[in-house]
């Protein structure tokens, strides 16, 4: 059982988001899922993309591709969308079902 904080001292809870990758993107990054700490000052999809781009050449290529799609909590959004703790962000290429 986790200890419950009592009294005036408030424990700072880390603001985390989950990030998923699908299809060709997942293969290019060789990564299916990761967790990211949310920065209160830089919390839009645009910020997340900039931060992930720094992980290496493959990552930079993926996150600067203008065709990249993104969903937050299973709804498509654009880069201006801001995030809150526990959001699930998914990055994927243009869809090809049907």
């Amino acid at each position, binding site marked *: 059982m986790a200890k419950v904080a009592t009294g005036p001292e408030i424990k700072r809870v880390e603001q985390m988001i989950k990030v998923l990758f699908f299809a060709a993107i997942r293969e290019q990054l060789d990564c299916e899922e990761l967790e990211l700490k949310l920065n209160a000052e830089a919390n839009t999809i645009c910020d997340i993309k900039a931060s992930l781009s720094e992980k290496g050449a493959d990552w930079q290529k993926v996150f600067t591709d203008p065709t990249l799609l993104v*969903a937050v909590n299973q709804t498509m959004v654009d880069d201006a969308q801001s995030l809150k703790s526990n959001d699930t962000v998914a990055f994927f*290429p243009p*869809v*090809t*079902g049907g």
Partner: protein
Amino acid sequence: MSLNSIKVQQQDFDFAKEVDTLEENNLVDGATVTFVGRVRNNNDGCQVKHLFLEHYAGMTEKCLFDISQQARERWQLGNISVIHRYGKLALGEKIVFVGVTSKHRQDAFMAAEFIMDYLKVSAPFWKKELTEQGERWVAAKAKDSKEANKW
């Protein structure tokens, strides 16, 4: 009571049974339009051996449901059924089914085509083809965006 059936599944489905379910106990709607999409043996000039369909579980169901609700807002519809498969699919296998009933054929035709056009550009499915030249992710078609934009 209108039926709004959305299924995302690995296994095949029985077309006739799905259409029966779509139409049963319905003496109001005179028109039923169905669409079935299958794995073709060629795409962009390459001989296809089979497909592998990846999807974003949870979001696909939500997305297909949203699309069918949008169709309901635009046309007067009775029942809607959408089935989309994922996983490994052999040549000729069914990939997707859309069925719509309506009082008027025009509404049923429009809605079925709308659902397919929107599904094509917004439902998170991705096709990987195994061709004689090896595996490759299928590229999205500009034509599909154009068709979705016409609505």
